[in-house]
C-alpha cells in the first residue's frame, strides 16, 4: 500500500500539485487520470522519487520515503518496477539483456539463474522469439511487453506505469492493460497507472483518482464514475461521445433519463 499525505510540488512560481492525499491499495490497479497538464506525471515522478515534494509525505507500506537513509531508499527502489511511456529500454542491449539488467545489478544470481528468470518473465508477457533482438528491431507493443517484463523481473512490490497504452493500437492496448491487471493480481503488488485513456480506465481501473489543475478532484471506482455528479469528472469522462452514449444508456436502464 502506498499512502500519500498532502503532497505539494512547485516548479518556480507554478504550483503543480496542490495538497494531494490518497491511498493506493495493494493487489489493485490504481489509476491516476486527468487532462494533460493536470499534474499526473509530476505526481507519478514524485512517487518514484524523481521529484521531491515540497511538503507532504509518501509512505510505502509504512516506510516514509523522506525518513529513509540513502541505503534504505536504494533498497526500496529495488522493490519498484516502472514501465515508462516510451518504454525506456536500453538501446545498446538486447531484449534479454534489458530484462535481466535489474537482476544483474541488484541480485547475486548466477548467469544461469538470471537466464531462467528472464526466459520465464518473457514467456509470461507472451514474448518468446525476441530474446536476441535490439529494442529498435521490435514493434511498439513488443517494446511495452519487454518494459513490463523488465519491471516485474525482480518481483517488485510496487509497479508504476506511465501511459502504458500511448502509441498503441486499441487491440494491443487492451492486451497490455489486461497483462498489467493479471500481473497485479498474480504478484499481489500495488500498481499505479498514469493514464488519460478512458478505455483503460473502464477496462482495468479498480481505484481511480482524478486530478484537475493539481487538485485531487475526485476518487472512486469505475462503477462510481457512472453514478457521480462531480462536475469535473463528468466533464472529463463524457468529453468522449462514446461515453456520453454509455452514460445515457445506463441512466435509461436505471430509469433516470
Amino acid at each position: 500500500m502506498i499512502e500519500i499525505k498532502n503532497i505539494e510540488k512547485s516548479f518556480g512560481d507554478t504550483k503543480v500539485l496542490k495538497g494531494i492525499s490518497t491511498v493506493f491499495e495493494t493487489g489493485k490497479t490504481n489509476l491516476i487520470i486527468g487532462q494533460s497538464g493536470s499534474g499526473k506525471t509530476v505526481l507519478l515522478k514524485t512517487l518514484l522519487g524523481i521529484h521531491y515534494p515540497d511538503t507532504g509525505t509518501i509512505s510505502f507500506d509504512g516506510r516514509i520515503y523522506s525518513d529513509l537513509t540513502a541505503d534504505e531508499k536504494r533498497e526500496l527502489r529495488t522493490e519498484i518496477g516502472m514501465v515508462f511511456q516510451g518504454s525506456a529500454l536500453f538501446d545498446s542491449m538486447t531484449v534479454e539483456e534489458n530484462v535481466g539488467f535489474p537482476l544483474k545489478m541488484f541480485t547475486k544470481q548466477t548467469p544461469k539463474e538470471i537466464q531462467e528468470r528472464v526466459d520465464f518473465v518473457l514467456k509470461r508477457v507472451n514474448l518468446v522469439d525476441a530474446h536476441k533482438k535490439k529494442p529498435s528491431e521490435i514493434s511498439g507493443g513488443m517494446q511495452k511487453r519487454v518494459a513490463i517484463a523488465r519491471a516485474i523481473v525482480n518481483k517488485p512490490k510496487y509497479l508504476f506505469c506511465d501511459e502504458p497504452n500511448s502509441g498503441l493500437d486499441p487491440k494491443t492496448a487492451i492486451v497490455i492493460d489486461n497483462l498489467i491487471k493479471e500481473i497485479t493480481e498474480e504478484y499481489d503488488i500495488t500498481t499505479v497507472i498514469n493514464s488519460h485513456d478512458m478505455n483503460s480506465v473502464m477496462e482495468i481501473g479498480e481505484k481511480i483518482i482524478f486530478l484537475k489543475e493539481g487538485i485531487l478532484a475526485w476518487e472512486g471506482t469505475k462503477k462510481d464514475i457512472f453514478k457521480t455528479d462531480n462536475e469535473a469528472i463528468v466533464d472529463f469522462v463524457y468529453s468522449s461521445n462514446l461515453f456520453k452514449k454509455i452514460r445515457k444508456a445506463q441512466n435509461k436502464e436505471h430509469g433516470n433519463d
Partner: protein
Amino acid sequence: MLKEVFNKPLKWSAMKNLIFKEVDDLIIGSLGIVAFISFFVGGVVSIQTALNLTNPLIPRNLIGFATRQSVILEFAPTFISIIMAGKVGSFITSSIGTMRVTEQIDALEVMGVNSLNYLVFPKIIALLLYPFVIGISMFLGILGGWMAGVYGGFTSSDEFIQGLQMDFIPFHIAYAFIKTMIFALLLATIPSYHGYFMKGGALEVGKASTVSFVWTSVSIILANYILTQLLLSK
C-alpha cells in the same frame, strides 16, 4: 556531479564490461581516423618545412627537427584532441542525451542505479588510455613526415633521422602526455555534462552535441595555453 561519478559502482563486474565497451567505442574506434589524419598531416608538415627552406645555408635536417617538434608538441596532443572533441565528444553527448530524452536515465535512477556513475565513470576510465592514441599519432605523424620528405625528394633519410635526434629534450614528451591526460579528462567530462543535463527532444540532442563540441574545443585550447605557460616557460 563529480562526487556522484566517482562513487563506488553498484557492481564491479557490470562496470568492468562497461569500461571495455567504452574502450572499444572511444579508443579503438578512433584509431583509424587518428592514424589517417596523423600520417598525412605529418607528411604535409614535412613538405611545408622543406618548401620554406630556401636558404642553402640552412641544413636539410631541419625538416626532421621541425616535423618532430610540431607533431610532438602541438599536432598530436592538441589538434588530435580537437578532432576527438568532434568525434568522441559528439558521440558521448548524443548517446547520453538520447538516453535522457528517451527516459533511459530516469529508468536507471528509478531502479536505484547511480546513473552518473554508470554512464560517465566508464568513459573517464576508458579515456585514461587516450595517451596511447596520442602516442600512435606521434609515431605516425613523424613516419608520414619521413615518407613525404624522403620519397618526395626533399631530404635524405639520414638527414631526416639526424634532425629527429637533434636537440631532443625528453621533457617535451612528458609535457605532451601531461597535456594529453588533462585533455582526456576534458573530453570525457564536458560532453557527458552536456548530454546528461540536456532538456528537450531530438533537436536539442543535436544542439547539445554542437554546444558540447564548441565548449570542449575552447576548453582544450585554453588548457593548452595555460599548461604550455606553466610547463615550458622559464
